[in-house]
């Protein structure tokens, strides 16, 4: 099985990092993974995006025109990626910043008020982890614990102090989805 995901948002929203944590978790769970960012002038101010591929097979193309999952953190990213998601795919959007009426009937939408949730946890910068937790719960791509473990395994020593709060953020995102599913 192979899953292609795009994460997109403003630089500074932790978009690249969110994708990277997912890639680490995939790698630690024996998957093939690729992570390829946009780079250069775009990194400053414009949209930052990263394509992550997680696969049981060797990965050929690390880029895709039609991702199965798009995770968008701001309006420009919504505009750019809504049409690209492959039919039957999933679009997760940060509903704290994007007030959007879904325009496609052939994909699933998941609205995550990521900044609000992260803000309540005390740090809006953890919005990316809230979204990642929701993504994991909605797709079942990997166990949530795998992502938590990836943070423990790969955050540099100086950042290890943030592991626990990030795990809480992941959990909140996942809970949101579970509650939606239960409802």
């Amino acid at each position, binding site marked *: 099985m192979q899953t292609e995901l795009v994460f997109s948002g403003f630089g500074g929203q932790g978009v690249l990092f969110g994708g*990277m944590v997912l890639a680490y978790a995939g790698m630690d769970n024996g998957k093939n993974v690729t992570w*390829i960012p946009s780079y*250069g*002038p775009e990194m400053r101010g414009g949209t930052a995006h990263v394509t992550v591929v997680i696969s049981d097979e060797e*990965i*050929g193309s690390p880029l895709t*025109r039609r991702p199965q999952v798009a995770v968008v953190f701001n309006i420009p990213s919504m505009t750019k990626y809504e049409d690209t998601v492959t039919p039957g795919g999933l679009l997760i959007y940060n509903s704290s910043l994007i007030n959007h009426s879904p325009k496609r009937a052939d994909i699933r939408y998941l609205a995550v008020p990521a900044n609000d949730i992260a803000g309540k946890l005390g740090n809006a910068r953890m919005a990316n982890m809230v979204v990642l937790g929701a993504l994991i719960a909605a797709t079942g791509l990997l166990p949530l614990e795998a992502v938590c473990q990836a943070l423990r395994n790969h955050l540099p020593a100086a950042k290890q102090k943030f592991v626990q709060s990030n795990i809480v953020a992941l959990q909140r995102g996942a809970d949101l989805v579970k509650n939606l599913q239960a409802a």
Partner: protein
Amino acid sequence: MAKELLKGNVAIAEAAVRAGLQAYFGYPITPQTELLEHMSARMPELGRTFLQAESEVAAINMVYGAASTGVRVMTSSSGPGISLMQEGLSYIAGSEVPAVIVDIMRGGPGLGNIQPAQSDYNQITKSAGHGDFRPIVLAPGTVQEAIDHTVLAFDLADKYRTLVFVAGDGMIGQIMEPAELPPMRQPAQTRPAWALTGADNRPKNVVSSLYLGAEKLEALNKRLQAKLQQIKENEVRFEAINTADADIVIVAFGTAGRIAKTAVTEARRQGLRVGLFRPVTLFPFPSSQLEKLAARTKAMLVVEMNAGQMVDDVKLAVNGKTPVQFYGRTGGAVALPDEILDQIILLDKRYPAKKATPNGQGVVISVA
């Protein structure tokens, strides 16, 4: 050693360090800058030489100097910088000192952009500087291969006393994927007999590309050509996937090659007999292997991230035995699997099965 999630540029740098690199000289340019940055921290930490030069011109001449002392030395750059290095590359080739150059290609010509491209193919395989010489050129398609090629590059450079390029593109430089680094090798403690170390109780050594008499310079050229012949005989590397029964063979290197793999998988799923031939050494080019394949394919599709450069070598290799079509994207655009698949389907319809093609008279068609 366990796999780590590594960025291509960093992986190449660390692989070089572990291959016993003694000195790195470079100049920042996107999309290879992480390579230089990694060196700037790592080399001094190990008591080795890192220097950010004032220009690529200076960097390559520093490489030339360090290479003259017989140590493992390298630089890295991208197209605009490689252009500036051509003078030094030619001197290094003429002096027969080993050096490794990493080119993380970007869109050109001119300042172009910083997106991935393969448009330095002709420059580095055929015309890396004035005079008759050709570097060995390795083209990795994955981060793991980039690591392996970097180590191999130093071994080949030493073995043949030649220039070796590791030719990646912006995508190889920027991508992260799991890969395993080699164990650490210390820089060699001894120097080759020809190296400049001081004429201490031995006749002096000279490193020079100057041979004023035609006879002497021709002798050098003959030696260089003999060396290239040896390299052609011994160092050809390629990957062939699903080519045994293929009607259509895609020929693509580096990033374009790995992307084409996905197209091949999809084509097979649709029942088309498609294979992939991926040259790993761009020089020496796997010509005879391609020629053999040509005899039993109905067409070849060359896919590149340029306007058609390697395609000339493919045409020379197959020598009319099968039609060769080209599909390329330029300016930093990357051909995605669906585009390549469209080309495969077109090609499949255009050409009848091989047995209907007059032997050895395949039509050579190139479509930009």
